[in-house]
């Protein structure tokens, strides 16, 4: 069951171990980090693997909607910035796969699970990017929402995950800002550009709110994840945080939020929104979003097309080792 790459493995420690459990509980209670070679309950390990892997998959799949506009970027600078952003996303995927591999599972296995639909990625990436303005909106709303979550995740209990989050956070603010700057240019531009920005807002606002997941009452894993301090804040609290920081930004841009029920609650000093369309949310989660199939088939195709390359590189490396052995 073990992959070969296990200098970090905790498998041999994972049998029921009262002393290990006590140490683990103490670490969690003291807000310290669980490290790869610590004893940990099987459920903790499985949950952390799944969460990190799916986070990594999300970064990689998330490259596709934005890559769609690299070739048509309206200026040389915008083209460069967009490539850099997409490259960062690949890099973030790499940090996260790297963190996941500390738990004794290989990236190959994880990618295989993604390709076969047995591990998932964030549903937001199943929506199409239909105009240049979407590059702005994705940076502002989608990265913006992710940042709210990942700032809090810097405090997650698993050490490698927490450190990956800190590294990602440092690189992330460029992403949100470049998105906002695209929208600033559009909303202060021609009527056609303003309309492009508003149309984009109309399509991405609700999917961005859906990124935070179902109400906590409907979320199957929140309680357990919170007890293990993997998850540090509830879905609804994170979503509210995002809404409160984003609504004033929309007002600054002069963009209307597509929610007739939006109002400011002066008692709680929070913005109240209408109800999310949960039918749409669950449909996309289940695989019937606009581009679920395309996103995966694109990824699988790239993987399959690259098989001869990976095999060639491995064969070359093996030949070099053979030559070294012979000459030794």
């Amino acid at each position, binding site marked *: 069951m073990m992959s070969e790459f296990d200098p970090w493995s905790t498998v041999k420690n994972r049998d029921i171990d009262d002393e290990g459990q006590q140490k683990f509980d103490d670490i969690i209670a003291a807000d310290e980090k669980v490290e790869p070679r610590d004893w940990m309950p099987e459920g903790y390990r499985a949950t952390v693997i799944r969460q990190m892997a799916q986070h990594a998959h999300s970064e990689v799949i998330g490259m596709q909607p934005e890559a769609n506009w690299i070739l048509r970027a*309206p200026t040389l600078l915008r083209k460069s910035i967009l490539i850099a952003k997409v490259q960062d996303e690949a890099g973030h995927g790499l940090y996260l796969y790297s963190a996941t591999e500390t738990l004794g599972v290989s990236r190959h296995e994880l990618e295989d699970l993604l390709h076969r639909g047995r591990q998932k990625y964030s549903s937001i990436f199943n929506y199409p990017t239909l105009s*240049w303005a979407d590059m702005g909106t994705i940076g502002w709303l989608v990265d913006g929402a992710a940042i709210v979550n990942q700032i809090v995740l810097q405090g997650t209990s698993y050490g490698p995950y927490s450190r990956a989050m800190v590294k990602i956070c440092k690189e992330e603010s460029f992403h949100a800002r470049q998105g906002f700057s695209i929208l600033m240019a559009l909303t202060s531009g021609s009527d056609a550009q303003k309309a492009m920005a508003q149309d984009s807002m109309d399509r991405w606002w609700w999917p961005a709110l859906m990124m935070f997941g179902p109400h906590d009452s409907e979320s199957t894993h929140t309680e357990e994840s919170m007890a293990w301090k993997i998850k540090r804040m509830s879905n609804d609290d994170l979503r509210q945080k995002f809404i409160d920081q984003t609504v004033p930004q929309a007002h600054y841009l002069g963009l209307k939020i597509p929610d007739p029920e939006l109002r400011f609650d002066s008692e709680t000093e929070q913005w109240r929104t209408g109800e999310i369309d949960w039918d749409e949310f669950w449909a996309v989660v289940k695989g019937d979003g606009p581009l679920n199939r395309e996103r995966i088939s694109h990824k699988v195709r790239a993987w399959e097309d*690259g098989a001869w390359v*990976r095999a*060639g590189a491995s064969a070359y490396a093996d030949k070099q080792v053979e030559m070294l052995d012979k000459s030794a």
Partner: protein
Amino acid sequence: MTTKEDTTIATGQFGVYLIRHADDNLVLGQRLAEYVTRAPDLEEELAVANIALDHIGLATHLFTYAATLVDGDTSADDLAMLRSEREYSNVLLVEQPHDGFGDVMVRQFLFDAYQLLLWQALSTSGDSTLSGIAQRAEREATYHLRHSSNWLIRLGDGTSESHSRMQQSINRMWRFTGELFESDELDVAVAASGVGADPVELEGAWRACVADVIDEATLSIPEDPYQASGGRSGIHTEHLGPMLAEMQSLARSYPGLSW
């Protein structure tokens, strides 16, 4: 911008010279950008994006400088987005499409070996702006050549499948290499005035470098002597048109706006 009276190069002509190299880099950068999300693994995604950024960044610097030298009130973005395929002056090699990683790396390798020699030569250009651009481009080309050479060797001397695919890519791209070293009046003039490099001078070193790597890769140079030509005068293969149409579509749909 010159040291000898009778070899003065006109400002506008120097601009045209710079635009050739800007076009080379923008077209290749755009081709590489097509490959993003299609690489064989995550590490190569990062590498390809890096190289694409280098080429597009270099093109931007060259276009920006050229825009100050040519007639009319123009900008780097105008040069990139508003010229037609008959006005583009890139070599044919960089506009060739790729069908897989082999094509991507062979096209890259053949061009990288040329770029390194070109930017080495231009790093001592009598024009200080160009020599500054060239010094940075030379550093980047060194890295690019190391990367693409690596791939040629690994895949040429990998499995029999990788070997045969790489050989097919070389066979496809080889006919576009001769053009890299063609010299016309402008090349001769910029070299004579000390601000540019005559590509004819680069051919020997290029052949030596390329032969070395192809040999180590256990691959071979095709025997077909035919060489295509015409890019510098805007006579392109049919591949450039659709590529530019896509690249320019948004900028041309909304002319004159800020983004």
